[in-house]
């Protein structure tokens, strides 16, 4: 809240002493920007400049395993993309994996947050149990599910299946995409849960009580009061979840080793370039497509969030 108040005051000051503020700002402008510069420059050098290289590579036929010189071929790599079956498959896996993992984590996380948002014996302990999967190293999470839960011979899941008289299934081979998504949801619902929990606990209880006194039903209160208040938190969860889940690599590597049905674009790109494929030019064009798609999605996401920021102030 305090930032909203300061900002509001800043604006009235702007109106009142616009000239003086402008003069001060000019003098202070560099003093204010200076502390940001190191972080800004570091970020640009390490993340943006390599990206420009990728853009350049994507316009060449560069293979790192042949002595042939790197030749500029324009948009040829991009032109070939629509006919590239492996690229299309990987792109489709990326879409399915990201959407499924984000949505399911959000749903499970919200349900868990609502369950946790009440006083009961051991509340803090259960919350701690629930967030732990998020803290686990993805490599460990993948290994643990693959060989100790999914496995047909030693897996607990199959042991339970057999208990009920079903045949055991080698989940990671038979349902590779679903297996990876299950592990992702296991790790990310706790994260969503904590964000939604922060939203629920920031609720104004007097409003809720007033609604209850006025005879509102539980469902009505949730739909009309709680949900609108939770919206920014749900959007934040979606945004952060998407940022990380679009880039999933570790889980795939460990659980399926990148079998065709579970190979997303990041995995495929690494495989075709530094992972031994050596086709730096072609793989770079894949990267650029991923980046452009991410930027489009991110822009929509950020615009929604910034719209909320504007409403507040």
């Amino acid at each position, binding site marked *: 809240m*305090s*930032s*909203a108040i300061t900002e509001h005051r*800043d604006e009235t000051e702007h109106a009142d002493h616009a000239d003086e503020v402008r003069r001060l*700002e000019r003098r202070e402008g560099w003093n204010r*920007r*200076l*502390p940001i510069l190191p*972080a*800004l420059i*570091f*970020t640009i050098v*390490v*993340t943006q400049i*390599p990206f420009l290289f*990728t853009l350049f*590579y994507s316009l060449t036929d560069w293979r790192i395993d042949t002595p042939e010189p790197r030749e500029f071929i324009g948009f040829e790599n991009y032109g070939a993309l629509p006919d590239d079956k492996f690229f299309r498959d990987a792109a489709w896996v990326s879409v399915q994996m990201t959407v499924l993992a984000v949505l399911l984590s959000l749903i499970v996380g919200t349900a*868990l947050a*609502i369950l946790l*948002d*009440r*006083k*009961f*014996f051991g509340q803090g302990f259960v919350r*701690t*149990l*629930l*967030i*732990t*999967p*998020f803290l*686990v*190293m993805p*490599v*460990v999470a993948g*290994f*643990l599910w693959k*060989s100790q*839960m999914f496995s047909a011979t*030693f897996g607990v899941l199959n042991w339970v299946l057999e208990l009920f008289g079903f045949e055991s299934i080698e989940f990671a081979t038979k349902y590779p995409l679903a297996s990876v998504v299950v592990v992702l949801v296991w790790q990310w619902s706790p994260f969503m849960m*904590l964000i939604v929990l922060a*939203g629920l*606990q920031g609720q104004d*209880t007097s409003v809720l*009580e007033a609604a209850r006194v006025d005879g509102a039903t*539980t469902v009505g209160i*949730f739909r009309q009061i709680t949900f609108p208040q939770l919206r*920014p*938190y749900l959007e*934040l969860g979606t945004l952060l979840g998407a940022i990380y889940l679009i880039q999933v690599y570790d889980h795939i*590597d460990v659980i399926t080793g990148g079998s065709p049905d579970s190979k997303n*674009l*990041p995995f495929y790109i690494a495989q075709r*370039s*530094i*992972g031994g494929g050596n086709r730096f030019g072609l793989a770079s064009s894949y*990267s650029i497509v991923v*980046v452009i798609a*991410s930027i489009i999605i991110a822009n929509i996401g950020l615009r929604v969030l*910034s719209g909320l920021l504007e409403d507040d102030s």
Partner: protein
Amino acid sequence: MALFTRAPKAEPILGQNRVIAHVLALLTWLIGLLFFFPLFWLVLNGFKDELDANSSPKLFFDPTLDRFSEVTEDTTGLLSFTEAFGNSFWIVLISTILVMALAIPAAYALAIRPMRKWRDVLFFFISTKFLPIVGAIMPLWIIARDLDLLNTRAVLIILYTAMNLPLAVWMLRSFFAEVPNELIEAAQIDGCSLMGQIRQVILPIVAPGLAATALLCVIFAWNEYFLAVQLNPVEGSTMPVWVASQESGRGNFLAKLSAASVLATLPVVIAGWVAQKRMIRGLAMGAIK
């Protein structure tokens, strides 16, 4: 009765009925235990013989610490436990210090003495997170190779700093924004210098937020695998690479791998347990405020 329900502070969403309250509490416990079960099983397997681990699931067995000593004392592979732990420790520590050193001034400037268009700057930082790392991995590999940085700790320190910086700026800004402007103005009127303001007014208020942010950076850096395995797959590498390398041995390795997993996971799990509430408050406030 009193065992399960304490006096409710705020009205919970799901009704007031006593019986329902008990059922829901029980359900929450069950789900919590279910979510934790795979980790419980992992720890259990770490204490088993390979024979017990590599059979149909067993709950009762003779627990042994042998697997833990095996994985920590084994030095036959490219990367031993002590090497990996040391590498991870230094890489995570130094990159987190760098992140904080870069992010604190930036967050201070964005929150307490905001310039015009500060929101655009903040969005720029966040938007760099949207650039999937695969978009830069090839040039990074080439640059690292040409600078002789492949298989060094330095390359991971630099990249983990860049990886965590946007998140840190975002979280820290929201913690800095919590400092009441009146306090800073009062300190200014009392003739307090800038450093004095920072040390005596601002730091005490944001200190818990700084700790939470640093911990989140530690967690992400400690668990990172993709960059580590691509740019630094051998002796200079980190714990996730060490865990993954435990799989490739001959014969049965399930119990051994479980023990290694437990050792690799424990430090950040404990850190996360300690910081859980603040971490999320910072993340949530970053966007909402």
